[in-house]
């Protein structure tokens, strides 16, 4: 069972407490939301890369040549 470490500053006592079912559920929900967010970001980056590659292909130039044109 996952635990949390709690330090009481008044007493200096350090205790390891098992996460409650609610805390575990919340952490798992947060993790799923994070994974979904990361997947969306990766999909957006992949889409941008595809658009870029398609434009370069239509223009018939390499990425390096495109950079030289824009510099």
């Amino acid at each position, binding site marked *: 069972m996952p635990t949390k*470490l709690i330090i*009481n*500053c008044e007493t200096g006592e*350090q205790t390891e407490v098992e996460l409650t079912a609610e805390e575990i559920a919340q952490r798992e929900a947060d*993790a799923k939301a994070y994974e979904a967010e990361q997947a969306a970001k990766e999909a957006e980056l992949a889409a941008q890369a595809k658009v870029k590659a398609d434009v370069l292909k239509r223009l018939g130039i390499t990425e390096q040549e495109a950079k030289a044109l824009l510099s």
Partner: protein
Amino acid sequence: MANTYTLIASSTVGSGGAATITFTSIPSTYTDLLVKASLRNNRSAVAEDYGIFFNGDTTSGNYSAIELLGSGSTATSRSAYNYGLLTVSNNSTANTFGNLEVYIPNYAGSSAKSASVDAVTENNATEAYAGLTARLWTGTAAITSITIDKGDSGVTNNFLQYSTAYLYGISNS
């Protein structure tokens, strides 16, 4: 060290690891707070950012952070509610830890709370991280508890044994 710099509490993670580290019942008698920590976690990565949360509030919308990050090869700026506290993860050199400190001025005041973080990770390879982060919590209550937490990693992410955290109180007189 100046006598206005007082160790309030300290902790060391035991053999079972810990998902979070929390300081509770923080007295309001100081001017500022300072957290110093040395942390390693069990995630399959070189390093991971953690957040620092106040009074049990882990709501992402109540925090913001801007992090200036160097990776050993590039420098970037990025933002997320749980960024700033760089920690070493399991893909870094064994038995190394990240080191960081968080300065929290005016923690007992009645306005939103800012915090500045400087942090580094250790790795016997090119990829290692250094970061400077400005954090803000919208809460206006005095800070009475502080939690170091990944915030988005489920229940499998743990600080490893011998990770340490210290809480200091800073007085202006």
